């Protein structure tokens, strides 16, 4: 994991302050250059908020090196999460968050990334049947929550993955989870951390990152 740097930084941007406060990284920080759109990045799913703009490192096609997207001005989104929970795990381990995303608006909402103060990188994962074996992999297009509809995140199904916990997720605590839409909408939830041992499907590494398992 040494090749993954902590990419979540703040530059004290006007728009970003409230959002960043809610994900636990508020306060003045050193100026930081925004990622250059189109340039390659280490690990898809990495997201940065710089000067009120959110950038996401994405690989839109399997096997390609992920690249920074064009960036979107940070705004809000009406997306909600009910029954949110995350699996308790030790520092350095992986974990996942679950729940039901609901879209109360009349247009579909596409979630393309997530940010947690507990993990350097978060990824949106799906579980698919590959030759009879259930494997999980990154969902490159993100999660689309239909207009007026819901989208279920559950073990052995779609979930939001903590790729590398920088601190433990301890049972009974809550942990901030910020979702990012393709329109730059940010919203933070506080899923409850619970002991859970299920859903251990094998992991299909499409991130180009060695040594994940």
């Amino acid at each position, binding site marked *: 994991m040494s090749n993954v740097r902590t990419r979540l930084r703040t530059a004290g941007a006007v728009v970003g302050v409230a959002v960043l406060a809610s994900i636990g990284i508020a306060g003045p920080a050193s100026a930081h250059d925004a990622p250059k759109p189109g340039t390659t990045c280490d690990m898809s799913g990495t997201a940065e908020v710089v000067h009120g703009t959110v950038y996401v490192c994405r690989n839109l096609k399997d096997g390609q090196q992920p690249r920074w997207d064009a960036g979107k001005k940070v705004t809000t989104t009406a997306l909600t999460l009910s029954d949110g929970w995350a699996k308790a795990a030790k520092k350095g381990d992986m974990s996942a968050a679950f729940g039901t995303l609901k879209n109360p608006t009349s247009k579909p909402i596409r979630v393309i990334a997530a940010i947690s103060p507990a993990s350097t990188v978060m990824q949106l994962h799906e579980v698919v049947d590959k030759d009879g074996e259930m494997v999980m992999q990154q969902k490159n297009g993100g999660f689309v929550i239909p207009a007026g509809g819901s989208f279920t995140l559950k073990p052995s199904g779609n979930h939001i993955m903590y790729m590398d916990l920088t601190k433990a997720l*301890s049972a009974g605590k809550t942990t901030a989870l910020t979702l990012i839409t393709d329109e730059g909408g940010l919203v933070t939830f506080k899923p409850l951390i619970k002991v859970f041992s299920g859903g251990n499907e094998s992991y299909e590494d499409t991130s180009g990152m060695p040594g994940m398992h």
Partner: protein
Amino acid sequence: MSEPTHAVTRRGVLAAGGAALLGAASGLAVGASIPVDSHAATASTGAPPEPSSTTTVQDSASPIPAEPFYGQYQSGIATAPTALCTFVGLDLQRASRSDALAVMRLITDDAARLAAGSAPLADTEPELTTNPAGLAITVGIGRQLLDRLDLGDRIPPELAPIPGFATDRFERPWGQTDLMLQVGSNDAITVAHVLRMLTKDLSTLTSVRWMQPGFRSVSPPLPGSHATRNLMGQIDGTVNPQPGTEQFDQVVWLPDGQQWWSNGTVLVLRRIRMLLDTWEELDRPTQETVIGRRIDTGAALGVVSESDDVPFDAVNRAGLPVIPLDAHIRVAHASTSAEMILRRPYSYDAGMRHGANDLGLLFAAYTRDPRRSFIPMQRRIATSDAFNRWNTTIGSASYLIPGGVRDGEILAERAFA
């Protein structure tokens, strides 16, 4: 399979034939029709359920709801006793306020969801939560936990240490713990699954010291009685205050003006082994003299029915008290509301031990102030109760039961903050 399909009610399974009484006793809103489990009926006959000729029978099972979780008080105290209730004693692994709050957050979340008829988050067997059947989850806090968390100044004086009594014969592991969970339901699978879920959820924060499963009949021992029979056949709980009365509130809930524990109470939980082998050697009149009440009717000696006042001053032709001076009900008698307790007893049966039945009573008493009620009563009992020869107190613990919460709040949140 020509025989007719038997309609098996869920609660009928628990209390054979007592469904109507049961509904009244458990106080559950079940509507006009008795829920019928058609799957159970299928299993009992091996044939598909036939269309019923009676209008009260439904094709599919109707879940029996849980007691509401949100409210002024925690459920499981003023609510109707369920057929099954397990008490769990747990210790916090680390003396940490944030861990204590994490425990309360998990219990609150699980209990609220279960009470609403849903599965807890991360439940791998959500199908086992579909019949709450009067489920009530109650949480208690041991005095020692508040001490360990350096919150001694938040211990209410009512949560007084229970002193030792001359008759105590404590055995491991039934002693005081940091925390207590009480899980009651009329469905055994529900109790087992909720216990599994809660103990799993708390497994990184707490260690379970003991589990004490209890049971009782949910049909009244006699029409109109609010009490229950213990494993000696005695009717227990005759003089209980009744929920919804001013007396109940005075007997059970902590006095007003609490800073941390509004709408709380104190639970004294004692594990009392009954010595049935020697008890059964006594003839029935002797047994009734020891207690001061008839076993069949529950009436005090010298009067007719269970609800009649006990004639403590009556004497027989020999000039001796009808209720002997060392009779259990005289020794345990409370003269004022302040001396009263709410008895919510369960029986236990732990199988055989050294060739004898290890069974008895989970004496669960809820009281505003045990210094004025349970402790003096138990002191009198230990000193002079004739009944002591046939039972042994093998465990004791007491807990503060915090008040109830509203949606969005966490049990005992302010006290642990």
